[in-house]
């Protein structure tokens, strides 16, 4: 019996583990159902057997079993062949759960037949962070938000993500489980209501707990990473000191009378804070009861009765009670997208004639003032028969424009007025009506195919093609399990091409981080309709 990982490459497809794994018919039937699949589930950190883990195989239908006290399982009366094997237990992750991503899908496979050895399957124990938050006088702080933040890669960029959170209980305790191994940052606070009277009744100010990044920082840059290894139980106790907090009041205008407006407060890097804002639709007045000194942005949004978004953001510099803050809601922008295709065969321009078919879709990606990425997608609008493409409800900001052609096209140009969107970011102003995004696509792209020599450890690779002529993201294409790939419909131009093993760990939108990889990249210039074949060496991410 052999256990190996089969890597199935998927782009933007989420597969259900149990249902989409299609096996050749020959594996599902057999004349001789005389073999057994036996094995043992162990804790990857301690090596101890795991009792009561669920083992599922998919041969002659689905069979499920819980492991015994010794961690062992045994499925009898099976035909020779292969089966996907899934294992599960609360408090543990399977290797596949930890490894799989949008372009990677691995499946544990068990082989059944004569002379099969015991199958040893590992489960990775979860990490847990727990602890207690107290005030300087030892009094537990109740109902304080606790948040774990992770830095990850999304579309080749470093982004911060709120991972998991909770709030402290009556004893000031919190507990966050089900953590995958990795690096986390912890924040505690802020309290959204005054928690204590200022000492001495002559000073009427209120006190609250500001946000603290473990161990004692006031922002993410001064936070210490928390390393969670498999099975780690980490206790974090924090003592927090109350600080003056201030009240912010004001009025909101621009929305329909009586309509509710959502309010959110974010700090200078775009993290949203629970601040318990209160809004009175009848008068348009709002109030934030207790906010620590600092620089913030107050975001307000609502919809008008026609369903169009209204939005506003106001900078707040809080070092005293603020009153009379005025927030004017303005409509967000709707940006029309116009596409045209130039056919090289006829030399003519051809506009999309087919109903509900658009040759490209567009995304606006904002990295704005903050570290949290936001995306706005183009969508079809209008009545059937006269549909068009539009990006709706775009808040003011600066966006990079990503264009995904459908089918056999490449992007020749993309403009907003005189602005070349392949090179420059798009600025969207508040309350304005922006110019349409005009995209020209062609069908005489180059085609590139080739092979990557895979080693024993890597069962697949991903090809990245970085265009030299634009700031657009690279074209990403996984290879098949043998290392073959093909990139059809490449825009003519110069490229840097490389093959990596783990694209999900590559910060490929950061030129600085890519420099060491680019020195191993293949430079290639392709012309219209050119067909090119290349061999690539596999680059290991992180090495």
């Amino acid at each position: 019996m052999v256990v190996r990982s089969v890597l199935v490459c998927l782009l933007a497809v989420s597969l259900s583990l149990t249902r989409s794994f299609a096996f050749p018919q020959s594996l599902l039937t057999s004349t001789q159902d005389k073999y057994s699949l036996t094995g043992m589930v162990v804790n990857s950190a301690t090596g101890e057997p795991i009792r009561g883990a669920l083992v599922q195989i998919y041969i002659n239908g689905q069979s499920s079993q819980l492991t015994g006290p010794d961690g062992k399982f045994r499925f009898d009366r099976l035909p020779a062949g292969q089966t996907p094997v899934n294992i599960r237990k609360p408090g543990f992750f399977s290797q596949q759960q930890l490894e799989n991503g949008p372009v990677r899908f691995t499946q544990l496979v068990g082989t059944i037949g004569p002379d099969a050895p015991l199958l040893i399957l590992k489960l990775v124990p979860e990490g847990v962070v727990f602890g207690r938050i107290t005030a300087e006088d030892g009094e537990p702080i109740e109902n304080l938000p606790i948040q774990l933040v992770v830095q990850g890669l999304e579309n080749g960029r470093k982004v911060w993500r709120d991972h998991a959170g909770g709030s402290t209980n009556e004893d000031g305790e919190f507990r966050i489980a089900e953590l995958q191994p990795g690096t986390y940052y912890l924040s505690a606070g802020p309290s959204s209501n005054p928690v204590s009277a200022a000492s001495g009744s002559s000073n009427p100010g209120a006190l609250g707990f500001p946000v603290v990044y473990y161990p004692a920082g006031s922002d993410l840059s001064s936070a210490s990473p928390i390393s969670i290894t498999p099975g780690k139980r980490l206790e974090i106790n924090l003592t927090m000191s109350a600080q003056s907090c201030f009240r912010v009041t004001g009025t909101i205008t621009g929305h329909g009378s009586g309509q509710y407006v959502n309010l959110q407060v974010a700090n200078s890097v775009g993290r949203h804070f629970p601040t318990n804002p209160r809004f009175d639709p009848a008068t348009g007045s709002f109030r934030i009861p207790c906010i620590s000194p600092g620089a913030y942005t107050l975001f307000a949004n609502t919809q008008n009765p026609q369903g169009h978004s209204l939005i506003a953001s106001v900078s707040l510099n809080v070092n005293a009670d603020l009153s009379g803050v005025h927030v004017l809601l303005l409509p967000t922008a709707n940006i029309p997208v116009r596409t045209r295709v130039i056919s090289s065969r006829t030399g003519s321009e051809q506009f999309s004639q087919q109903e509900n078919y658009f040759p490209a879709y567009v995304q606006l990606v904002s990295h704005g003032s903050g570290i949290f990425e936001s995306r706005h997608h183009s969508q079809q609008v209008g009545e059937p028969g006269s549909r068009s493409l539009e990006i709706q409800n775009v808040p003011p900001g600066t966006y990079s424009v990503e264009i995904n052609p459908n089918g056999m096209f490449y992007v020749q140009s993309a403009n907003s007025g005189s602005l070349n969107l392949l090179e420059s970011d798009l600025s969207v102003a508040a309350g304005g009506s922006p110019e349409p995004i005009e995209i020209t696509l062609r069908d005489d792209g180059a085609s590139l195919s080739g092979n990557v020599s895979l080693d024993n450890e890597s069962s697949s690779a991903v090809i990245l093609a970085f265009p030299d002529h634009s700031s657009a993201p690279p074209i990403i294409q996984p290879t098949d399990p043998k290392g073959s790939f093909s990139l059809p419909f490449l825009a003519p131009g110069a490229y840097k091409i490389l093959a990596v093993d783990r694209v999900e760990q590559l910060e490929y939108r950061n030129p600085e981080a890519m420099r060491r990889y680019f020195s191993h990249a293949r430079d290639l210039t392709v012309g219209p309709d050119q067909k090119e074949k290349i061999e690539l060496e596999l680059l290991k991410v992180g090495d």
Partner: protein
Amino acid sequence: MLPLNFLQILFLLGFSLPAQAAPRPAAQAPTEPAVFRISGMVVDAISGQPLARASVSMDVSPAAGSSALLESNRTAVTDTEGKFAFPGVPPGKYVLSARRRGYFPQMYQQHESFTTAIIVGPGLDTENLTFRLHPAASVSGDVRDEFDDPIRHAQVMLFRENLIGGTRRTSVIRQVTTDDLGHYRFGHLAPGTYFVSVSAQPWYAQHSPRVRPNQENLNSSGTISSFSPSAQQGQALDVVYPVLFFPDANDLASAAPLALRAGDAASADFRLHAIPALHLLVRTPVTDPSQPVNIRVTQSLADGREVGLPASIQQVAPGLIEVSGVPPGRLSLTQMTPNGNATTQRTQRVQVFTDAEVDATQSGSSIVVSGIVRMDDDSPVPQPTRVFLRNSATGQNATTDVSATGEFSFKSNPVEMGNYEIMVAAPALFIRSLSSSDVKTTGRSFQITNAKDVSITVNVSKGTGRITGLALKNNKPCSGAMIVLAPLDLRSNPALFRRDQSDSDGTFSLNAVVPGRYTLMAIEDGWDLEWANPDGLKKYLPGGESVEIVPNQKSEIKVNVQ
């Protein structure tokens, strides 16, 4: 005074919705803009010790509306001596509430939903209040399985027994899920009688259907010949956890109450045992195959509280559905049949102990209640008016609109036999009586004893009366007394009772009083009285004041505190 949302409370009580509480007469507007102070000290109700770090909130009486709430809501935090103060308070009527770690949120001198409101104005003492906070109780525990493994993400519900409308009812007040250690906790609880339940599913459960959807299962007439389970691996994992009430009961009736006093920390641990899941074969009326019938399986935990069960539903053949993965016990199967854009729902209650076939072709709940709302002056029914139908036994209720000509029909919520109550939600309407040639009616309820559609006439009247008054003890205004307005016939209808708590100046008000003759009583320390129970109230009747309420009129009454 009663500061809570009227609709919510009255609905619980089973009243028709009265007129919106008329705003109190504003305090006499002084010619000069006078402001006053509310101040006091928060202390532990048991030890009398001052409490620092309590948040005291001051709101104007809710009658003034939401904008006033936002502008006037103020919060102060007590200092190290437990003291709080709100300077610059304009004359008016205010509700004080406080919260602190280790205590449950309370209004000033709170009893049930009532509080003693603070009346601010010239000559009224609103300083040096003593706000007694009662320590909170808590319930916590661990949920484990038969292997002693913690069960995470189990749903734990906390039930509280309440005196509603003078009678005891038990309802869910909070819900949490267990953490990775199987631990849960309910804090900040007021003293009272509680129950705890756990619902969870074995994380490893595999509920695969036993009957395969093919022709072999069907005989020539298109019905299934027998329920023959196909041999199947993994039936050992076809298991469920029945809902468990602390300590080891399957329903609320046999659960052990947790009587919590202030400061109690009760512990309630659970051990769940997986048992074989049941498979039900449900025959439904054969419908258009392009409009598949779905079935929702729920279980009633308490008065009106249904929890959904994660059953898997598979249509075996037209008119035949297998429901897999349900526990034994009393279940509700609700068939949802698409009907154009709407969905028709029919609910069938079953009690199952083994795998069973359920004939739902003639659903038990097929009785349609409809009728007419008739105004006593034959005027049109004000719009919008809604009528509620409540099953007295299960607490399940349905609602529908009443047209201007008075018609209503619960056709999308057919019911089964049983006792039902009718409620009308409209400003200033109250039900005088019900009449029907189909069923026996009593007060606002009626009994369906056979499976025939029911037509009901709901006789309603417009106009309710209002009482304001002053509670006196030794000829001085007395605050915090329980005010009870009882109909002459104590046994007639609990919905006729009205109550209040006298405010800091001894005043009280009773709104939306159905016209008729009553006795008004003020009772000190009367908050444990089962006031709707005639035997409990009888001894206070002689000390009360007799009043006659006529529609749309206000009565002013002084009453001595007993």
